[in-house]
């Protein structure tokens, strides 16, 4: 067998001596590999956004199935025991109970000089304070400040300029003329994204990048708003709350967390328990609306789902993330299938080109055999030439895919309208995509060159040299 360095030099010289043949052989593979890299990086990038930010697959929501007979609600309810049972599962890292505000409530206030009004009842969840314990910015402020429901501040005069000692964190509650701590509220990244992409521009409001930075720049008091417990903005609502129970509560937006409900507000669960008890009854104060389960990793979802199927009292909320994941898998599969078909056809084309080359180069092969090349040398030379085409095609294909992605990303930034979670790039070019692209390219080129190489190596030198 000829020395590797000499083989490499000969292979490179042979592969580059006929640009026309090289381009003809490489063209299809370049297209195929470009499609492979483009599709793979594209679906990976989109998946990252959808499944990483919008629908994290390692988080699922467990609810109690709704059942009723003859109009009577027989749905099982979830409580602290349910949470403990789920937490005991080996595939579960954490279980976060949620309690929804079960009576009408509104939110209103001013933001950047503009009046805002929104529905809070049904759109507000309570979660245990401990669930933001890992967040150093939220941990000190996101908690039930008045667990016994009693005011923590001094007496005050309501409906006048705030005369509580800590104007940023306290408000004067008209129900007892006492200074209360404002209810800390967090929102999800989805709400922030919806605000930035759908609300901010249309209402002339500023974009918010990092919430904490925004709060620091504008001041805590700019994050104040009011919650009207017992009132609603929904026309036709038939829920009647005794007007005597109506109450205005001061709230303060303290930050953004992925622990918050996707759309709506999230507050410490103690407030929701007290308010549900006060406005609806004791039962509403002990039933959880859902449990957010964080799995040890997304691969545990199947095991957890299987367990839930055997639990008649529990089920998974519609798994949009799983549906998107399935859809992305199918799309990726189809697109990569197309890329593979292109590459396979190109490999056949390479085989055809090399068969022609072997016929054209019979005399050359005969000369090489006459001066000392073994059959293995001849085979290595032809296979090496096809591998060189593979290396160049894989690199060029990857480069073209990357350039195409720059074009698409430019269009995304300058042409496409804003939408929630709009990423800077639709592509995720992981290093292994390039590596596998070049590897695949080499593999298919070598496969294409293998049979012609075998034929070349089997040529009898005398017969090859006899060619006119």
């Amino acid at each position, binding site marked *: *067998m*000829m*020395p590797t360095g*000499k*083989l490499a*030099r*000969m292979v490179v*010289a*042979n592969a580059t*001596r006929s640009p026309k043949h090289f381009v003809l052989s490489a063209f299809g593979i370049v297209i195929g590999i470009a499609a492979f890299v483009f599709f793979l990086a594209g679906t990976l990038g989109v998946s990252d956004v959808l499944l990483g930010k919008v629908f994290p697959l390692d988080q699922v929501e467990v609810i109690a199935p709704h059942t009723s007979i003859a109009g009577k609600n027989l749905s099982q309810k979830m409580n602290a025991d349910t949470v403990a049972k789920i937490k005991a599962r080996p595939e579960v890292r954490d279980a976060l109970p949620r309690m929804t505000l079960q009576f009408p409530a509104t939110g209103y206030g001013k933001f950047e000089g503009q009046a805002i009004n929104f529905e809070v009842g049904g759109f507000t969840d309570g979660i245990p304070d401990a669930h933001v314990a890992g967040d150093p910015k939220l941990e000190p402020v996101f908690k039930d400040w008045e667990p016994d429901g009693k005011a923590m501040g001094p007496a005050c005069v309501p409906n006048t300029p705030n005369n509580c000692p800590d104007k940023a964190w306290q408000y004067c509650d008209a129900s007892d003329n006492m200074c209360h701590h404002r209810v800390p509220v967090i929102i999800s990244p989805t709400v922030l994204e919806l605000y930035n992409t759908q609300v901010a521009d249309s209402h002339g409001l500023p974009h918010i990048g990092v919430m904490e930075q925004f709060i620091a720049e504008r001041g805590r008091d700019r994050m104040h708003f009011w919650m009207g417990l017992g009132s609603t903005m929904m026309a036709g609502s038939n829920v009647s709350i005794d007007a005597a129970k109506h109450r205005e509560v001061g709230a303060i937006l303290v930050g953004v967390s992925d622990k918050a409900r996707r759309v709506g507000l999230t507050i410490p669960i103690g407030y929701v328990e007290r308010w549900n008890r006060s406005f609806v009854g004791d039962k509403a104060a002990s039933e959880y609306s859902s449990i957010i389960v964080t799995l040890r990793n997304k691969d545990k979802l199947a095991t957890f789902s299987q367990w839930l199927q055997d639990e008649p009292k529990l089920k998974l909320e519609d798994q949009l993330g799983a549906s998107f994941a399935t859809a992305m898998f199918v799309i990726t599969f189809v697109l990569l299938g197309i890329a593979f078909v292109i590459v396979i056809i190109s490999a056949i084309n390479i085989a055809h080109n090399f068969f022609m080359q072997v016929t054209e180069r019979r*005399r*050359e092969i*005969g*000369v*090489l*055999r*006459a*001066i*000392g*090349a*073994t*059959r*293995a*040398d001849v085979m290595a030379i032809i296979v090496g030439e096809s591998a060189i085409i593979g290396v160049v095609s894989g690199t060029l294909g990857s480069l073209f895919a990357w350039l195409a992605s720059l074009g698409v990303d430019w269009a995304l930034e300058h042409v496409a309208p804003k939408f929630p979670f709009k990423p800077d790039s639709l592509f995720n070019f992981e290093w292994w995509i390039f590596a596998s692209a070049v590897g695949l390219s080499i593999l298919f080129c070598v496969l294409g060159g293998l049979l012609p190489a075998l034929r070349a190596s089997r040529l*009898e*030198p*005398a*017969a090859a*040299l006899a060619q006119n």
Partner: protein
Amino acid sequence: MVSPVISLRDVTKSYGQGSARTPVLRGVSLDIAPGELVALVGQSGSGKSTLLNIVGGLDKADGGEIKVLDHDYGKTAERDLARLRNTSIGFVFQAFNLLDHLTCLGNVTLPAAFAAGGKDAPARGREALDRVGLSAYADRRPSELSGGQKQRVAIARALFGRPKLLLCDEPTGNLDSATGHEVIEFFQKINKDDGVTLVIVTHERRVSNIAQRVIAMRDGNIVEGAGTDVHTAGTGDDLGGPA
């Protein structure tokens, strides 16, 4: 006694199969001693080139015993046969068989690609070109050379490995008379100076005239005899058509 460079015993070779099977060599036996300059003559289809190819390991015999440079081809692996061609046997063909994409020096040093080492290959290549008087043409492509120059480059390539045996198949067949004469003289010189054993397939009298031995072939057999017996096998200057 010195062992022969080439020793053939009852070598047979046929082409085709079944009823189309055509015997080309019908039990050829011969010995060629080291340093001999042998002309292999005969009419077209007599089996000269086939015999040369079998001796060079470029073709396989159907039967018989072939020993070249102490290698029994029946027991020699393909890899060892390739090494033998690389290091000890040189070939010169009628059609030159130079690779057009390489320079003259590249063609001459090509055998070094299939051997380990060889850092001195360019120097040895230039030396070989110098011997055939073409050192100034080292960087030229074969397409820029005349027929005679191409054949000299081919001879330089054959001599690159300092072979003990040079097998030449109609080396002057594509050359004009004057150039052919130069090539013949060169063969004589390397045979005399370097002691290289030469077997030249030819149908030209001027080549056989310089041979120390002329082996004539007819219908796949060696016709024993030399000089006028063999020469009269052809007509005029011609000793037979291409094999």
